[in-house]
């Protein structure tokens, strides 16, 4: 393992952490003190909202994981960023506007509003919490890894640090979904990745543009059925984005369905822009840090590249910028997810409501994944996040798509689909992470990339059981459909 990083990196991380706590503690609010506020900006504009969504969405998997995977396993891994981006296209065409018009703040809200069933609501809550936890584990592990690389601190310290910062910030009443803070997070992450990338590319050119080859045999095992794994990845990321709890919550901020659509296009562009960078790091990593290909901690390659390629003070400073950006990624995604999961826990799990319960829920929301991150074996960050997408794709995707477009969906159908599709995906992920089924062989491939079969299972179960229970179609279905699809201007003008 390489030597601990420059103190500048530690300072950068400390700054990001401090800023997060302060923002949380003081509850920085974007507001105006005069009433021309309404005239100037009645609502959050699509572009601003899009940057906020992107800020929360770009996690450690994007910041560190993709480059690491590309470095180790070659360009096939670029399906990750493609999937993360294309997921928004699927979300746009099937979900964005109707979801906003449903008025739902969370997925359980949507389920209850559409299917008029407390039971479905509770089940969806369980899945939101489950998917959120699966998503949180790699964030915490990534933080632990980053801190280990930077300071040589034991691996668990970073996990605990990020978890505690999130708890303090969220429970202190801050880190609410404040648009401007997240917008800042997006640009911080982009800058933190872009500036070092420019210097790295310049250095590469100065080096006489050596050719990057991906032909070297990969020594670290990933999948013995790579094509199947690729398809599993594509399906999970394309269909899973729409169900991520912290993404759904942000759509509420759009003033109407039309703006929700435009927001999604902007997110697509911003996320796509960001994803131009990790492949650069992956390729340069191949060239300048080939030792990572055989080591375990390829996720850290991004952080150490500037020191390797440029070196000196400049390299250290760029490394520090990357470290700060990485921590911003952990904190923003982790706190967004924790907020979403804690919200669901307070509303649907804990008995009574109130501020104290929300704090308790926050602790609960992050304690479980923290324990998970410390106990389970390390899976590459991007792969672990891919599993969260698989769970989301096999449970929330059928629920949302059928709920929005199909009148004959019934509560029993939804429950069957969630349990069979989402449940089996969740179970597969749990088995994979626990290490009970080991590669090689089809059983491992099927369990590690469940989306290929669990998504169709989820859709089929939902459709077939719904068709078998035609008497259970919620009475308000037509009203709900009308609300989902009717443009707001028309809905308001109609009654005037």
């Amino acid at each position, binding site marked *: 393992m390489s030597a601990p990083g420059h103190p500048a990196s530690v300072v950068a991380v400390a700054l990001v952490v401090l800023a997060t706590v302060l923002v949380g503690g003081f509850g920085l609010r974007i507001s105006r003190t005069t009433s021309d506020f309404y005239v100037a900006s009645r609502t959050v504009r699509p572009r601003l909202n899009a940057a906020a969504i992107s800020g929360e969405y770009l996690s450690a998997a994007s910041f560190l994981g993709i480059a690491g995977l590309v470095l180790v396993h070659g360009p096939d891994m670029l399906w990750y960023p493609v999937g993360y981006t294309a997921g928004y296209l*699927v979300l746009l065409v099937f979900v964005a506007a109707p979801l906003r018009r449903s008025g739902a703040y969370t997925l359980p809200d949507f389920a209850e509003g559409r299917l008029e069933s407390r039971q479905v609501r509770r089940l969806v809550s369980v899945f939101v919490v489950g998917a959120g936890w699966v998503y949180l584990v790699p964030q915490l592990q990534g933080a632990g890894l980053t801190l280990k690389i930077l300071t040589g601190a034991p691996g668990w310290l970073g996990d605990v640090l990020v978890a505690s910062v999130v708890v303090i910030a969220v429970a202190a009443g801050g880190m609410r979904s404040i648009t401007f803070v997240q917008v800042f997070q997006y640009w911080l992450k982009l800058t933190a990745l872009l500036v070092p990338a420019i210097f790295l590319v310049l250095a590469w050119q100065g080096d006489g543009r050596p050719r990057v080859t991906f032909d070297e045999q990969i020594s670290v095992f990933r999948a013995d059925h790579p094509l199947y794994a690729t398809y599993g990845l594509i399906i999970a990321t394309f269909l899973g984005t729409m169900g991520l709890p912290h993404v759904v919550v942000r759509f509420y901020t759009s003033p109407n369905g039309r703006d929700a659509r435009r927001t999604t296009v902007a997110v697509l562009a911003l996320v796509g822009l960001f994803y131009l960078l990790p492949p650069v790091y992956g390729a340069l990593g191949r060239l300048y840090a080939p030792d990572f290909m055989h080591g375990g901690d390829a996720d850290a390659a991004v952080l150490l590249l500037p020191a390797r390629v440029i070196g000196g003070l400049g390299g250290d400073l760029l490394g520090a910028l990357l470290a700060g950006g990485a921590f911003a990624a952990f904190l923003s995604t982790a706190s967004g997810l924790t907020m979403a999961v804690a919200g669901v826990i307070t509303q649907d799990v804990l008995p009574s409501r109130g501020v104290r319960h929300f704090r308790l829920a926050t602790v609960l929301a992050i304690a479980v994944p923290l324990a998970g991150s410390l106990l389970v074996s390390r899976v590459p960050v991007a792969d672990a996040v891919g599993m969260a997408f698989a769970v989301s794709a096999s449970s929330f995707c059928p629920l949302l798509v059928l709920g929005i477009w199909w009148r004959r969906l019934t509560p029993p159908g939804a429950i069957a689909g969630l349990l069979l599709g989402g449940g089996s995906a969740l179970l597969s992920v749990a088995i994979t992470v626990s290490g009970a089924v080991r590669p090689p062989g089809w059983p491992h491939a099927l369990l590690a990339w469940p989306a290929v079969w669990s998504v169709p299972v989820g859709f089929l179960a939902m459709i077939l059981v719904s068709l078998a229970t035609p008497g259970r179609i919620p009475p308000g279905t037509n009203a709900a459909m009308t609300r989902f699809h009717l443009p707001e201007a028309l809905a308001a003008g109609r009654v005037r």
Partner: protein
Amino acid sequence: MSAESTPRREVVTGEPRRVRPLPRYRAQSEIDEQTALGGAYVRSLMRSQLRAGLTVFAVLATVAGTLPLLFEALGSDALVWGVLGFATCPPLTLAAWWYVRRAERNERDFARLVEGLPSP
């Protein structure tokens, strides 16, 4: 008035009325949302929107479904790196933009259709 002389405040809340929140206004909203426009009109809007969505999704699924096979057949890592790393964002954004224009046009057409009706 100065801060020192500010009298103390007490917290006052109403007494619990033991009201159960009104479960939902379904009947009312259903009448409101159904009779006014009629299910047939909404269904036609849904169909046109779904068609637009499915068009985009079909193109996306075809491309994403065949690319891995193509890459496998060609076996050129540089091509994969170039296509997936840099060439996906623009077409995705273009497709999204096309869809949004199409969906908004559908909604405008629908509004014209409905507003041209004698008031329900």
